[in-house]
């Protein structure tokens, strides 16, 4: 004890030296022992080994350093173990070695040697495992110094792990059975735990803190025994319930130690499988109510519930909550809350409920009542807004139901406590809950099929749908609102009337979002509306009503994102045209044209919009002839007024096609409809009121002269561009393509002579171009066009 400090603590600064010295002596004696083994000198091997083992009698080392030294010793003892086995294989009776090992005078070295020899005795099948193991576990009582005893017993458990009469091992039978293996480990565990607990009360009270620290470091030596138990093949669920857990819990309760109790229960939770826990939950929970006051029962319950919930989450798991388990946890939790009311902080309370909730969600997917109960209890416990730890715990609690894969949308929306609870959170955490909820709902893809569902969901998602958005940058906002917009596609139902109501409700909720949000959300609503317009057949809401909704939505959008609104109007126009709702279609197109004139921000947007407008007009087969003429003329005017000359040139050429629209396939040419009775699809069409009215108006007219005018005007503009620094020869090739298209479409005014003229012009211009990428691009395009001319035999090419 001389080198120990006066207060009994190992000197910290001397630790490296003590460890180095002891290690060197271990190595030295280990070396001689190995040498003796090599020389088949049993007395020598035992003598040097026991000299080596004497180093473990030190009191100078802290637990961690003692552990290091112990590992070095164990490494050396493995050679001795091999030597013993060799001797036995060569004919020395194992009993002799077992006897000789006990000759060492000092108790600690003797016991290490005895254990090493004992394990060989069993492994060479020369003695029944049960007897030797019993012998060893009893003899180890000879060391009562806590730290040395703990390590000795750790060595015992380690050395004998392959010598247990476990089910299926070769030591079964004469060696005993798994019950002996269990008994051996339980005894060793009991003694280990006793030594460990006793450390607490040894030495002066002033050293209590340091002792507790040391105990916490040494705890794995105790826990290792539980790992051994969990590794026994012969311990199944029923043996665990009858022979393993009860003595373990008895130890836990009876040791009355506030460090041992939570640790051992934590080990039990972790090392044994879920099925075992579920089969013995009642005893476990009863034990939890018998612990020392200082023990945090809440975290033990949580650890168990989280473990079971995790297990249930695994894909191929069949572990779902057994009847009664939830109630047992709930009762235990409630009793805890009741008993420790003063001691429990709000965060603790929420955390406990969160674990219970997670357990309910994952293990009892069908039992919404459990989830509701947890949420109601939480609501009752939270009177005010929460911050800090409380908020963090509440966030975790709310994430369990809103992000669980086990929750259907319908189930989630029955949980009325969620939305009010989210309002207790600070805004960022509230948003996080909303985001996770949204992601889950979109991933789940369950239909939003009633206005009530929309209202309830939007209450949870509220912080994403409205409120201050100034802190978000454009990119983050776009990402978030694109997700929000996807809700439109969840609006589904058998009845189109219902879908319309749902969509309307969602429109009202999203409409409150302000201009930055609605720029992303309104288009989705409008397009979903157009999909609905195609199939709307409800007694209450016809396609016309749906088109009104789209019109209103697009008009609202026009204020915040005119270019996007313009595209919605055009898409709506086409949809209406397809349904032969001429007036509606015309109204939509007009709105698009008004937006074009008044709202578009720049010429780039104009060109893009104008292309869409020309395309829409061409596709609007059922358009009234007079309306069409007016719109085509207007579009051409727009094209001629574009800001940049090349844009004018291109768009006017594109407009030429407006005067040679594709002719509608006449109804008489359509194949006769299939007999209604035999064809479901046909039947649906038959049911759909009202049937599309037969087009009675005159079709769109073709005007060869206007076509030619457009092309010639385009050419003139292109010519005007030739004075610029880099003359856009490509424009001529594009115009040539338009000429060819019209020639092919049968316009009588477009004759090969125009083609020949253009070809000559382009050939000449291309040759004057500077070599480079621009010329190469033009040449490639032109070569393709020439190939077409040649293939069609339009004119002779040289």
């Amino acid at each position, binding site marked *: 004890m001389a080198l120990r400090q006066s207060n009994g603590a190992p000197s910290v600064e001397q630790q490296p030296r003590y460890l180095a010295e002891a290690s060197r002596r271990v190595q030295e004696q280990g070396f001689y022992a190995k040498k003796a083994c090599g020389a088949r000198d049993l007395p020598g091997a035992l003598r040097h080994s026991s000299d080596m083992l004497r180093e473990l009698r030190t009191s100078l080392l802290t637990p*961690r350093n003692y552990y290091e030294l112990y590992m070095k010793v164990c490494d050396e003892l493995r050679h001795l173990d091999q030597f013993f086995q060799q001797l036995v294989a060569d004919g020395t009776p194992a009993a002799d070695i077992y006897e000789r090992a006990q000759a060492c005078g*000092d108790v600690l070295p003797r016991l290490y040697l005895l254990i090493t020899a004992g394990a060989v005795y069993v492994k060479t099948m020369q003695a029944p495992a049960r007897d030797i193991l019993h012998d060893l576990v009893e003899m180890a009582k000879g060391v009562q110094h806590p730290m040395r005893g703990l390590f000795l017993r750790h060595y015992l458990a380690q050395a004998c792990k392959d010598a247990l009469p476990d089910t299926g091992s070769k030591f079964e039978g004469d060696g005993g059975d798994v019950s002996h293996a269990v008994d051996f480990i339980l005894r060793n565990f009991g003694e280990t735990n006793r030594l460990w607990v006793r450390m607490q009360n040894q030495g002066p009270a002033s050293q209590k803190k340091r002792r507790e620290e040391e105990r916490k470091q040494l705890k794995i*030596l105790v826990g290792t025994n539980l790992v051994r138990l969990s590794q026994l093949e012969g311990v199944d669920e029923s043996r665990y319930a009858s022979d393993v857990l009860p003595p373990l819990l008895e130890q836990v309760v009876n040791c009355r130690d506030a460090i041992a109790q939570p640790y051992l229960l934590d080990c039990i939770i*972790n090392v044994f499988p879920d099925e075992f826990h579920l089969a013995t939950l009642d005893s476990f929970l009863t034990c939890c109510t018998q612990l020392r006051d200082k023990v945090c029962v809440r975290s033990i319950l949580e650890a168990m519930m989280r473990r079971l919930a995790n297990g249930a989450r695994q894909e191929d798991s069949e572990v779902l909550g057994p009847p009664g388990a939830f109630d047992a946890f709930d009762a235990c939790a409630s009793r805890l809350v009741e008993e420790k009311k003063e001691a429990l902080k709000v965060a603790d309370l929420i955390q406990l409920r969160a674990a219970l909730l997670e357990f309910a969600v994952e293990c009892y997917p069908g039992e919404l009542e459990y989830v509701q109960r947890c949420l109601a209890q939480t609501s009752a416990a939270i009177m005010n807004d929460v911050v800090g730890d409380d908020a963090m715990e509440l966030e975790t609690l709310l994430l369990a139901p809103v992000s669980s894969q086990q929750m259907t949308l319908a189930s989630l929306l029955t949980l009325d406590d969620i939305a009010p609870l989210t309002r207790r959170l600070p805004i960022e955490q509230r948003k996080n809950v909303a985001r996770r909820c949204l992601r889950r709902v979109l991933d789940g893809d369950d239909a939003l099929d009633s206005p009530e569902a929309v209202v309830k969901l939007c209450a949870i998602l509220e912080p994403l749908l409205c409120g201050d958005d100034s802190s978000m940058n454009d990119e983050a906002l776009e990402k978030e609102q694109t997700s929000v917009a996807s809700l439109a596609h969840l609006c589904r139902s058998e009845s189109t009337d219902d879908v319309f109501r749902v969509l309307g409700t969602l429109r009202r909720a999203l409409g409150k979002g302000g201009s930055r949000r609605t720029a992303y959300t309104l288009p989705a609503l409008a397009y979903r509306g157009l999909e609905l317009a195609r199939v709307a057949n409800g007694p209450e809401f016809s396609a016309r009503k749906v088109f009104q909704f789209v019109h209103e939505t697009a008009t609202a959008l026009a204020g915040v994102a005119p270019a996007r609104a313009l595209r919605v109007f055009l898409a709506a126009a086409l949809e209406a045209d397809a349904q032969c709702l001429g007036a509606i279609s015309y109204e939509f197109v007009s709105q698009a044209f008004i937006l074009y004139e008044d709202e578009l921000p720049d010429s780039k947007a104009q060109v893009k919009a104008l292309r869409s407008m020309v395309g829409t007009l061409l596709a609007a087969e059922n358009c009234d002839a007079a309306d069409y003429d007016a719109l085509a003329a207007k579009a051409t005017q727009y094209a001629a007024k574009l800001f940049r000359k090349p844009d004018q040139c291109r768009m006017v050429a594109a407009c030429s096609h407006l005067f040679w629209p594709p002719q509608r396939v006449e109804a008489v040419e359509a194949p006769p409809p299939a007999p209604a009775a035999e064809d479901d699809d046909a039947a649906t069409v038959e049911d759909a009121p009202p049937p599309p009215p037969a087009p009675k108006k005159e079709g769109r007219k073709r005007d060869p002269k206007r076509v030619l005018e457009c092309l010639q005007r385009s050419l003139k503009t292109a010519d005007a561009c030739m004075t610029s620094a880099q003359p856009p020869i490509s424009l001529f090739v594009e115009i040539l393509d338009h000429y060819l298209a019209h020639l092919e479409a049968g316009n009588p005014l477009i004759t090969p002579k125009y083609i020949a003229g253009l070809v000559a012009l382009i050939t000449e211009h291309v040759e004057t171009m500077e070599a480079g990428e621009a010329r190469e691009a033009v040449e490639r395009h032109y070569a393709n066009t020439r190939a077409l001319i040649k293939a069609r035999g339009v004119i002779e090419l040289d």
Partner: protein
Amino acid sequence: MLLKVVILGDSGVGKTALLNQFVNNRFSTSYKATIGADFLTKEAFCGANARSVAIDETLVTLQIWDTAGQERFQSLGVGFYRGADVCILVYDITQPKSFENLDTWRIEFLTQASPSDTQNFPFVVIANKLDRENDRRVATQRAQTWCAKNSTSILPFFETSAKAATEVEAAFRKAAQLALSQGTMQADFIPETISFRGSPANGDSKSSCC
């Protein structure tokens, strides 16, 4: 010859399962956490050269240390890292976090084991739970990039399934082969003076209250 192998990785990635599959050819679906550290041994024939034929192979005893992935179950420190000949890093392809933590495990190992040559200490990386390919959240490419970044030579990478016994054997054999070719075996202790009486006078300073 004894080769010491240490397996590291986050809790629940399947370290114990891999070891059990390799040593005992067994797999259990129930999850049991590991507490502290424990080793299993397996004897195997192994060659130091990847292309070696059976004739070059020697019988080695692999002492494979299974470790607790949760820090609170390592209260006595990680003294058992020391003397390792090779380290196997394991992650779960369905848990990106376990992949991201490979860095921490690698650095922790090198710090604590302090091998003589940290630059060239052999590691093997195992991506486990290949049987759950459908839930994969760590792309193979990402792991290979990590391996290339963290090694001067090629850091062997295996995608395994402890459950289906896919590539488990190959990964451990590779580890053993690296350990052998590395030749990092610690030199045997040589005493300063050889005394045939061999009892050093060192027993006096210690208590004997056992």
